[in-house]
């Protein structure tokens, strides 16, 4: 029996790993079954969870998909905590707190440009699924160093089959091994100018209503600047060292407005982000020391 007011209960919920999908050697998608806790409701696209690897550490990860019974986290093996996480197998138990943070906001029927860099493709897939389901049109722009690092390509192409004429996939690679050779922001520029995208099929009269970006901060900064210039609404996804996830510890506060990324973000208005002094310039480590990019 659960007791008390669940609203204030932020103890980890313990879930089994339902399935592990290997995207690349070092990037895996962990699928968790939370049907036992489904009364808490599904997350919104762009939100994150704190994932507790028992006995190791707890880190924030963006949700890549959530249908109310299972959710996905696509995780790269980059640090000590994820190295331990990658030793786990199907059926192992893990702790989850959340979902936390703000989310990407759109209105049914809008035309969205989703800009993903590297791992950012996973949460953007979540946005695409939710947006397409309510009749939005989606430009899905992914950038990576090379073809092998383009995440979620297959899944987005499946979406394109399911929602014909509603979503267009654009790839950009540094070495030109797939799609456009160069930065994904170049593709975004073309899309914003209506020189690429769903307009190919002579879709008339509609422009991009919103730009959503998730990926390296420098890319998001550029995207936000482009959106401001094009007078388009824009949201980006901030990332900072986190401890509590609910706006108490102050570890993820950004200069110089002091917003908590975990609570006032992580999805944040692009124009507002450009006003944050530290956005695209520096961040802070686990003890609060400034680290310049």
């Amino acid at each position, binding site marked *: 029996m659960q007791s008390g007011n669940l609203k204030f209960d932020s103890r980890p919920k313990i879930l089994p790993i339902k399935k592990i999908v290997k995207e690349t050697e070092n990037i895996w998608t962990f699928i968790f079954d939370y049907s036992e806790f489904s009364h808490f409701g599904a997350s919104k696209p762009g939100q994150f969870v704190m994932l507790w690897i028992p006995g190791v550490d*707890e880190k924030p990860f963006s949700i890549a998909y959530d249908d109310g019974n299972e959710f996905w986290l696509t995780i790269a093996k980059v640090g000590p905590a994820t190295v331990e996480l990658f030793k786990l197998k199907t059926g192992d138990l893990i702790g989850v707190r959340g979902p936390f943070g703000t989310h990407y906001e759109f209105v049914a029927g809008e035309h969205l440009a989703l800009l993903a860099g590297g791992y950012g493709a996973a949460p953007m897939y979540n946005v695409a699924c939710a947006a397409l389901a309510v009749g939005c049109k989606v430009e899905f722009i992914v950038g990576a160093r090379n073809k092998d690092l383009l995440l979620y390509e297959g899944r987005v192409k499946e979406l394109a089959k399911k929602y014909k004429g509603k979503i267009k996939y654009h790839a950009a690679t540094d070495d030109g091994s797939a799609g456009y050779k160069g930065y994904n922001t170049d593709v975004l520029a073309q899309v914003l100018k209506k020189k690429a995208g769903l307009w190919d099929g002579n879709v008339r009269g509609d422009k991009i209503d919103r730009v959503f970006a998730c990926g390296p901060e420098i890319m998001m900064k550029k995207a936000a600047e482009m959106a401001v210039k094009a007078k388009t609404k824009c949201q980006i996804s901030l990332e900072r060292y986190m401890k509590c996830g609910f*706006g108490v*510890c102050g570890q993820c*506060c950004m200069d110089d407005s002091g917003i908590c990324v975990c609570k006032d973000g992580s999805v944040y208005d692009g124009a507002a982000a450009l006003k944050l002094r530290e956005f695209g310039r520096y961040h802070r480590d686990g003890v609060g020391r400034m680290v310049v990019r």
Partner: protein
Amino acid sequence: MLAPRLICKFSIFWVLSKGVILAVFCKKSNCCFLRILLEFLRMVKMKVKFCGVEFKNPTVLASGVLGVTAASLKRVVENGAGGVTTKSIWLKPHEGHKNPTMFGTEHYFMNAVGLSDAGIEKAKDLFAEYGRPAPLIASIVAGKNYEFAKVATEVAKMRPDIIEINISCPNVEDEFGTPFACSAVSAAAVVKSVKDAIKDEKFKIPVIVKLSPNVPSIASIASACAEAGADGFCAINTIGPGMAIDLKLRRPILTNRVGGVSGPGIKPVAVKCVNDIWRITRLPVIGTGGVMTGEDAIEMMMAGATLVGIGTMVYYRGVEGFSAIVDEMKAWCEKNGVKDLNEIIGCVNKSGT
């Protein structure tokens, strides 16, 4: 006697005339004008003086919450806090514990952050950037007595309004052993070395001690500190440490196994400790522990607190909770005919109990 009466009459006239002008200006109903007038007449004095430092209201951000950066402290002030406390400052960078470091439930909150801090160098940046929109209390911490003296010397150069000695964190025992605040002798020794270290500073900085509730007699610790020269107290630090176990994993939730308990459930303990300290020392106290509402804050002041420390409240009500608490305190005063908050400080002992 005539002059004050004249001034009084004049000020009423002034208020009325301003009110009429406002009402005409707003082109709103009489109701609006009356409300402005009433608000003006009802004004409660929220200002308090703590160790000679003036606070616009008695709410103070407790150490360890939202205190990593100057920007975040400023945001707390913008949201209504009368003052703020930094995270505890170490001489050198100090890693805290691994996550999970905190979680909450309806009645209590637990944390074992482990006093993570980037050390004195980063503190300099914080002080430079803060710009003093409200008094700043610098919390300092160290593992050894002589290190307390060193960190106090360094921090004093940055001229905080008050120095708070943290000798009572319950979740670093594995590293540093029993907190100094658990022994009257050790606690007093730390106070003495900090006071000695900064006694030659031109600007006199009051030194207060953050005490632990996890002792048989907080009053005896407090009086030992007072004798050693403490100018005031902050009480209480978190309770315990406590421990919470996840039933499915059959292991402690906090990586540190144990952690300090805070939140609504600890308020009665905090109120009692504050009163114990106040009764025996009559030194100013920042009453901290479980304050979630304006009435909680009033209760803390009645127990003897001049300032009210607020931390875990942010989990339940967000940073906006500070202004809400101040409003609730005002509302309580208005309802109960209290014109000046200073009237109620330690009032439980004034009525002879």
